[in-house]
């Protein structure tokens, strides 16, 4: 058996580098180059261009960058985005961790897969529809306010929709599902006898959790939190539908530049700033991001 394997593999190696196998790589490479690398380079160039009288002029000036950082509402948008993203990430992790923990260690094994599947199923409700559904819950005449008014807890409906809270809630709902999945999959990889060993050596349940379980689940938390961060900070739909006009986040500011004034150079600058921000966070998380371990 071994000998046969050796023979065939050495022959396969010597034999053919099918020309078609070499060429087959290029369509995908060319596609990535044309529709990913080139657009990025074009966007980079355009960020130095200027818009005068409704036309773009190919110049090489830093005006757009200085303008971005000198406009309060644009810097505010960046700041708002960062805040909403950080809140979302922290709250989602705090909600999802206990859920994943209960699923992994407390629910009988045969039920785990089913409950996990049930938990992440609504992940697949279309993006736009999901935000809209929360509007039905939070609106002035929505489920929550109707119930509160009927019970008599409040006389006037509370303002729940079109606030920052609504935006964060929409995000947290989405990412709780994602984080439960990533945290669960790193928790079940922890060998059960580690916990047994810790308690045999005299650790209390809390100590076991803090010094054994928690550190070993960091990869799942890190991957989930990173994905949460990247998707949240680049999302237009959730703040647009749920946040309404309460504040402008950076994706909304970018779309405004495109829709209101077709100001592509400015939109390019803002997109690049967003991208740099994400890259920085990636480098920050890099140490813990072992995606393939999940």
């Amino acid at each position, binding site marked *: 058996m071994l000998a046969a394997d050796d023979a*065939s593999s050495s022959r*396969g190696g010597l034999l053919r*580098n*099918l*020309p*078609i*196998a*070499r*060429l*087959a*790589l290029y*369509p*995908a*490479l060319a*596609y*990535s180059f044309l529709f*990913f*690398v080139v*657009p*990025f380079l*074009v966007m980079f160039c*355009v960020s130095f261009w200027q818009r005068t009288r409704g036309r773009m002029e190919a110049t090489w000036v830093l005006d757009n960058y200085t303008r971005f950082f000198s406009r309060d509402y644009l810097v505010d948008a960046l700041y708002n985005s960062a805040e909403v993203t950080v809140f979302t990430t922290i709250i989602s992790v705090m909600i999802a961790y*206990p859920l994943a923990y*209960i699923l992994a260690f407390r629910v009988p094994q045969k039920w785990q897969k089913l*409950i996990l599947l049930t*938990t992440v*199923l*609504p992940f*697949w*409700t*279309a*993006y*736009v*529809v999901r935000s*809209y*559904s*929360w509007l*039905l*819950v939070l609106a002035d*005449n929505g*489920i929550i306010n*109707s*119930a509160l008014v009927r019970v008599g807890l409040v006389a006037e409906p509370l303002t729940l929709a079109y606030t920052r809270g609504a935006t964060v809630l929409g995000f947290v*709902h989405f990412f*709780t*599902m994602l984080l439960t999945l990533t945290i669960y999959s790193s928790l079940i990889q922890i060998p059960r006898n580690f916990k047994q060993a810790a308690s045999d050596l005299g650790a209390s349940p809390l100590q076991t959790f803090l010094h054994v379980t928690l550190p070993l689940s960091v990869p799942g938390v890190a991957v989930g939190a990173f994905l949460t961060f*990247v998707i949240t900070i*680049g*999302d*237009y*739909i959730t703040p647009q*539908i749920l946040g309404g006009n309460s504040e402008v986040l950076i*994706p909304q500011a*970018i779309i405004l530049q495109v829709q209101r004034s077709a100001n*592509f150079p400015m*939109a390019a600058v803002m*997109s690049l700033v*967003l*991208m740099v921000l*994400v890259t920085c966070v990636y480098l920050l998380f890099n140490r813990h991001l072992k995606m393939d371990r999940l």
Partner: protein
Amino acid sequence: MIGNRTRTTLEACYLLLMLGFIYLPVVILVLFSFQAGNLPVPPFDGPSLRWYREVFENDRLLDALANSLVVAGASGLAATVLGFLAAYSLSRHRVRFIGAVRFMLIAPVTVSYLIIGMGLLITFNVVGVNKSLWAICLGHTIMNLPLSFAIIFSQMSDSHKDIDAAAHDLGANDLQTILFVAVPMMKAPLFASFFLAATLSWDEFIIAFLLSRFDTTLPVIIFEMLRAGLTPEVNAVGTLVFLISMGLVMAVAAVLVFRKEK
């Protein structure tokens, strides 16, 4: 110290609470799609199929539905074909700069869809390409290519190489080897890649929003309907969109399960 009984009860409560939180908006969405009145808010006065009838009589929605299916199918197919060819090549042939090549193929997944969309919008604008359904297809293909490539590449094994060689020895030419040997071996990952890519394209909003004008996909039309405020028609179409997404996801799951059983 809390007893074991109390602890289990607390945990069960938390589990139920979270399931409630996760399902609340979905249940409300579906329930009020059967509303008879004009507003998808309490009190519920259905059940009625009124708004489903409205959806099926709304040409704009039906056109968008067809567009979405075409874009999902086309970009899913394109990403799967490109991903398969690249994965085939990398698994059969020693490539120089393999790290750079893989990085290049995976890179689009590391930036937001918003950035991909903006890059394409600005580039198409500078080059003079019009906004269209085709532009959306191009965008969705680059969005899905990393995923398709990764799924297919992860399933290729070294033994495939020897089977290729055997086919060759038996007289198959290159094209025959790919079509009749390499592709059939990869049936399950190819289907998984197609359906997953189609699901993502079906749901995608921002790229479609930026790259299209009048002829556009369902999520964009639904977003535009929201400007008119809350209406049970959006609930009805949203419920349908959800069902189709579920169908696509089930297809992926079925393919993967089928594969395991073999």
